[in-house]
């Protein structure tokens, strides 16, 4: 049975005020379209979790959606700072609570969540100030060696939004290129929204089942949103808009400019389709040139 709905409907149905929300994707496949709809629907008191808050969460922080950020690296990748984030945590008192790990720690939290274990063990954090800064980083003793290892608690979001290159109507989703922690985040979550560049027939999925990273049986809604990851990218579809990431340094540094950006590109438009219609040069500038994978046979 089809789970395809509009982005408006998916967010309205599955993202509530106060939720623990994850929009994952490491540089690749970051679903800005979902974040913009959450901002438009004025969700509040969210705990937003990502390894790299990135411009996507800087926008949600600026829009007042979030009260807490769980993260491991809060910069603008290759371009500078996330100034909305910095203003929030550098003000006294801070207007945003933070819970901080390293990348490995965040990955381990998603692994534990996906495996439905309350903790995950890792050989990490010795000699650092992170455990003192975050009491959720604890330890266990190995029953074989007697050595102690760090632990992080499971992260089980209320809702996780994953952007994928393609899926069928039931949400069997395929991703290639960088995988980040999309699979772990989806399995860890109570609800899952899959957003895709392309809706395909199940036959396309079944022709190459090893490419499926998220099975439909854990998916609640499927949204078809071409260019939904811009200004991040979708391997095989469009390139990263580095110009925008660099421009964000200037936009986010000035609260007035940031407000103006949100007014024009988020509140001021209805949906991603209008977002694209208003900047037709994107397609010409960023559409990917083909680089084909070749085929394999699944026959027997």
């Amino acid at each position: 049975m089809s789970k395809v709905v509009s982005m408006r409907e998916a967010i309205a149905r599955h993202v509530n005020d106060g939720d623990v929300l994850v929009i994952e994707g490491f540089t690749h496949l970051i679903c800005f379209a979902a974040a913009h709809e959450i901002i438009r629907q004025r969700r509040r008191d969210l705990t937003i979790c990502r390894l790299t808050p990135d411009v996507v969460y800087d926008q949600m922080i600026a829009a007042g959606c979030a009260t807490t950020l769980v993260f491991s690296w809060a910069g603008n990748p290759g371009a500078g700072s996330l100034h909305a984030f910095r203003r929030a945590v550098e003000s006294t008192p801070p207007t945003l609570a933070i819970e901080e790990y390293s990348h490995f720690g965040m990955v381990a939290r998603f692994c534990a969540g996906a495996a439905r274990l309350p903790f995950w063990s890792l050989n990490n954090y010795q000699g650092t100030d992170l455990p003192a800064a975050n009491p959720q980083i604890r330890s266990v003793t190995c029953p074989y060696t007697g050595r102690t290892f760090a632990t992080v608690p499971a992260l089980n979001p209320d809702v996780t939004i994953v952007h994928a290159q393609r899926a069928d109507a039931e949400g069997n989703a395929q991703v290639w290129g960088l995988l980040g922690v999309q699979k772990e985040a989806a399995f860890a979550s109570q609800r899952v929204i899959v957003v895709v560049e392309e809706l395909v027939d199940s036959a396309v999925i079944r022709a190459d089942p090893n490419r499926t990273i998220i099975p439909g049986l854990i998916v609640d809604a499927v949204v078809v949103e071409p260019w939904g990851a811009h200004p991040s990218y979708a391997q095989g579809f469009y390139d990263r808009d580095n110009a925008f990431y660099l421009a964000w340094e200037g936009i986010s540094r000035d609260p007035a400019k940031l407000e103006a950006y949100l007014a024009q590109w988020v509140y001021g438009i209805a949906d991603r389709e209008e977002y694209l219609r208003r900047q037709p040069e994107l397609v010409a500038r960023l559409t990917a040139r083909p680089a084909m994978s070749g085929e394999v046979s699944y026959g027997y």
Partner: protein
Amino acid sequence: MGTEKQRGDGGGGTGGRYAPAELMACVAARELCDGEVVFVGIGLPNLACNLARATHAPGLVLIYESGAIGAQPERLPVSIGDPSLVTGSLMICGMADVFQFFLQNGRIEVGFLGGAQVDRWGNINTTVIGDYASPTVRLPGGGGATEIAIHARRTLIIARLDPRAFRERVDFITSPGHRARGGGREALGIPGAGPTRVVTDKAILAANVETGELELAALYPGRTVDEVRAGVGWALRVRDTLEKVPEPTDDDLRVLREQVVGARRGRGADE
């Protein structure tokens, strides 16, 4: 770290034949041996690794924390997750595999680290300036730098000399050096050897094999011990015999400018 920026600040080298950033990239590249498995960061480390791969270390295996193994970027990646790191790489894996099966497994031979603050023991702070709870400046945080500092068999630090950066003590230990919170690496059960060398814009510092303290090990052409001391916030020890750091060859500079930096065929920022 955009390369323009370093090009822009004018050659510190002899006759301005090269920019400080170019010199740092060339020096760092020489620290890499052919066939080594390197955990690459964006900016100078990326320049250094791709320069090494294009010159004396064609067998260098570049691994990015984003999950690209054996990457061969055809343009200068602006971010650590750039699509050019994926196309034509040998393997793409999820980040759970990167951190558990590659890094924690001990497969990474060299890791690159930078930081806002570095202390005399090679401890690095990329988290916060001032108090953690009410920071003066909130930095991005550790990202993968904590686990790289712990698990890479050795690490190279790249940073410009500046007494505000090279300090007696760092405000926050994001990446442990040779004497970190609670003691030395062995006592703490840290597998990697830690920061063996620090590549700066004027000299190379190296960790004392016994004490782990960073000492002046090599001067760049035309630089003096006093210049270096002026950039370090503690009483820097100077080794009796300093290594010689050869000038970048014209070949190095040509490859760096044409094949590595010039390789960028990126769009958006890159056009």
